């Protein structure tokens, strides 16, 4: 039994918990007509299917906010170059502020080893047969990782452009990585992921001379699906375009830090006001 959230090791279905959402109220009505007049009672539930995950994500988000951590959830197909990108990003940024990485893969700890070799603490979540990370698993992974206070936490999701789109992990935003060795129509084939992402990184641009990939068309498809998406092009292997990505991360880190300062100043002001009231 887990002391933080009360979960058992193996049984997700009997997972007792306090929760913050409303409990259902009983009522009788007949607005849902499906022809099968049941004998039982109708209860309104009116709850998001992902409500449980949302509670865990909110807890993670509170923890990140307290620590002033800028958190990115990196999503992509398998083989888009996320780990190479992260290793290079860690090497560039680890001297500027704390950086840590949580990686999700079905098997092996290879990715975490590559990140640690690049200079940042990393933990690997092996999802086994699971196709995505969820907020509960990330919460547990945080127990094994020093929180990069006032820095950046990268969560490298399982390589999958479908399932991770739905699972909020408590991140500030999702970054979708697409490489030019994939089809340029991926934004249309997997629209939910591109619609859910803040930033698209078009990776492996050094290979453009060798592949048939229409960059303009790809970017157009991405913007059709998500008119607000930001797009950067880079090659994590050669380093071309990396600086714009690193600056993007630095801006996010500074924004998270500024929010932390605001929060601490508000706490300080409240404490001073209490002291003044009680000081006579």
């Amino acid at each position, binding site marked *: 039994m887990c002391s933080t959230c009360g979960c058992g090791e193996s049984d*997700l*279905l009997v*997972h007792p918990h306090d929760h913050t959402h409303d*409990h*259902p109220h*009983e009522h009788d009505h007949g607005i*849902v007509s*499906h022809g*099968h007049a*049941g*004998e*039982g*009672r*109708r*209860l*309104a*539930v*009116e*709850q*998001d*299917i*992902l*409500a*449980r*995950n949302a509670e865990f994500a909110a807890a993670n988000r509170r923890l990140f906010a307290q620590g002033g951590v800028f958190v990115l959830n990196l999503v992509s197909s398998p083989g888009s170059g996320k780990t190479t990108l992260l290793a290079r990003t860690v090497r560039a940024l680890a001297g500027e502020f704390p950086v840590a990485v949580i990686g999700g893969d079905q098997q092996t700890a290879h990715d975490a080893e590559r990140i640690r070799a690049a200079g940042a603490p990393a933990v690997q979540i092996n999802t086994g047969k*699971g*196709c*995505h990370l*969820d907020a509960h698993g990330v919460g547990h992974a945080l127990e094994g990782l020093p929180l990069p206070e006032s820095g950046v936490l990268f969560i490298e999701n399982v390589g999958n452009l*479908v*399932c991770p*789109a*739905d*699972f909020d992990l408590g991140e500030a935003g999702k970054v979708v990585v697409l490489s030019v060795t994939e089809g340029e129509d991926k*934004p*249309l084939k997997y*629209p*939910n992921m*591109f*619609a859910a992402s803040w930033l698209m990184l078009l990776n492996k641009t050094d290979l453009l001379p060798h592949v048939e990939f229409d960059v303009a068309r790809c970017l157009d*498809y991405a*913007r*059709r*699906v*998500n*008119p607000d998406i930001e797009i950067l092009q880079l090659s994590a292997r050669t380093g071309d375009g990396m600086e714009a990505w690193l600056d993007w991360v630095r801006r996010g880190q500074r924004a998270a830090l500024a929010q932390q300062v605001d929060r601490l100043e508000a706490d300080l002001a409240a404490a001073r006001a209490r002291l003044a009231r009680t000081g006579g």
Partner: protein
Amino acid sequence: MHELSLCEGIIDAVTRQARQQGFGRVRRVWLEIGALANVELEALRFAFEIVRRDTMAAEAELDIITLPGRAWCLDCAEPVAVNQYFDPCPRCGGYQWRLTGGNEMRIKEMEVD
């Protein structure tokens, strides 16, 4: 195949609420799923049959109500209907629209005894 995870969430929520209110069995569950939600309905139905086993919802039927995609077109300044994220605005043919509804994944109601 995250439909399996979604069904674990559904079964967990309905059985917990039924138990809290003193009922012994969940007979039917109504879901509202938006037309643009990231879920395959056949996979969801298949996963539901697996996940409901050995729970108080073991014989529960699943009813899925599909909600239409709705958007606000910034160029037309009008509400419009959409079916996919990459659909053009049906009025102006542009893509400058924001989704206002149609990505829901909700448990609406259940029948218990």
